Structures are given as structure tokens and as C-alpha cells.
């Protein structure tokens, strides 16, 4: 049990950064993506994205493979990666839900 608990703590430490949470969520829900695609969707420079991906790779959360000139990233196969993806996905779900609630409350103004 101690071992499993530290997995969740490690997953949290790895996803402490909002951009990295976003990358994990993106790879977990939409599948593999190239560094260029990730940089575009997070409005970042290639250099900045490479740094984030490197940190995630070092933590074993993300795996990447270079074919030709394109480096493709995917969610890591370790248990920790799945824990981290769940945390990131949960957060996105909550924010999407509150976006909808906000829209709903705005739509019903004057009720």
C-alpha cells in the first residue's frame, strides 16, 4: 500500500505544472502527437515544448520516438502515467463542466 501511495504522490508531483498536466491530458485523450503539434496547441515555442516533454519523459510519463524529422510523443505505459492522465483528465472535465455552468447561468439571467 505504501508503494501505491507514493505512486499517486509521484503522479501529482509530475503534474504540478499546468502545461504538463495539459500535455498529459492531450496525449491521454486524443492520442499521440508530434512536438510541433503539441507546441501549436499550447501556443508555445518548439524549444519550450521540448523542455516540458523532456521532463515528462524523465518521469516516465511520456514516451517519444523520432521517425525521420518528426518526434512523436505518446502517454507512457507505466501505471504512474495512467494515474497522472486521470488527474489531468479529471481537472479538464471539471473546468469544462464549470464553463458550461457559467454559460447556463448566463443564458438564464433574469429568471
Amino acid at each position, binding site marked *: 500500500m505504501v508503494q501505491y501511495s507514493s*505512486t499517486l504522490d509521484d503522479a501529482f508531483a509530475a503534474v504540478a505544472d499546468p502545461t504538463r498536466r495539459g500535455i498529459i491530458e492531450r496525449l491521454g485523450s486524443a492520442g499521440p502527437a508530434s512536438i510541433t503539434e503539441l507546441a501549436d496547441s499550447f501556443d508555445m515555442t518548439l524549444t519550450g515544448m521540448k523542455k516540458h516533454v523532456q521532463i515528462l519523459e524523465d518521469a516516465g510519463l511520456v514516451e517519444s520516438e523520432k521517425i525521420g524529422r518528426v518526434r512523436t510523443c505518446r502517454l507512457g505505459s507505466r501505471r504512474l502515467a495512467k494515474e497522472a492522465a486521470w488527474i489531468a483528465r*479529471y481537472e479538464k*472535465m*471539471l473546468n469544462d463542466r*464549470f464553463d458550461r*455552468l*457559467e*454559460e447556463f447561468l448566463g443564458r438564464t*439571467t433574469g429568471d
Partner: protein
Amino acid sequence: MMTATAPRRATVTTPTDREIRIERIFDAPRSKVWKAMTDPTLVAQWWGRGNKLVIEKFEPVRGGHWRFVEHAEGQQHGFEGRFREVTPEERVVQTFEWDGMPGHTVLETLTLEDLGDGRTRLMTTSLFFTAEERDGMLQSGMEGGVNQSYAALDRLLESMK
């Protein structure tokens, strides 16, 4: 349609290494936000994030059960939990589980704050547990419960002598 450029008045923090806290300010009075969160016909209109939502169970009282199924792109995602505390217009404490990650319980505490200018702050603190921890808690809880039951049985048997 919501767009990525829509202003998002949200802050996300990680107060401890097991918690995520999301704060949102809604341009609506607290009573209205509360109603949107606890009236099932209203919940169905936003909880599914634009997807069809089937509310199978919704009992917003202490000990009550909730179960929602979101229908998205031919897939079904079930979510469920129990209400631990429901204090009208102030606080809801509930558990949250997604069918896709069975046993990964999240304990959610939602508090509403009237900002006094017609706006309301919603703060959600989500505490994460692993499946093993959850099972451990259940087990220890059950052991306690079983022991209490045995103690009550002992007392009952004693009184029948």
C-alpha cells in the same frame, strides 16, 4: 459554442500533493447557482459539458447516491458517488468515481460564497485516493463497523439473560 478564447475566470492550484483546487466566479446570485447544482432538470443542462446526460440517480441529501451517464460520440461514460454533506447554498461534500477508473475515488468539497455584488464564488477541492487506499479505508471502516455490531450484539445478548 464555447471557444478556446472565451474568458475563463478560473484559478487552479494544488494546495497539497493530493489535492486540486479550482475556483470559479459566476456572475449569478448564490441561490441561483445552488439551484443549478441541485435541481436535476437544471443539472442535466450543464453537467454533461454539452453531451447528452442521463441522470440515473440524484439524491442530494446526506448519504444520498448520485449516478450520471454522459453520452458522447457513441460512447457512454458513467460517473457516480455518494453525498457526505449537503448544506443548502453553502457546502456539498461528495465522492466522485468514473467507471473508467474504478476505485479511484475523489473526495470533492464544493463551497459557495456570496460575493455580495450578485456574484458567487464556487470553490471545489478534490482530494485523490488510489484504489488500494480506498479499499484500505473501506476495510478498516468495515472492521470498525463489524466490531461495533458485535459489541451491540453482546450487549443485547447480555440484556436478554
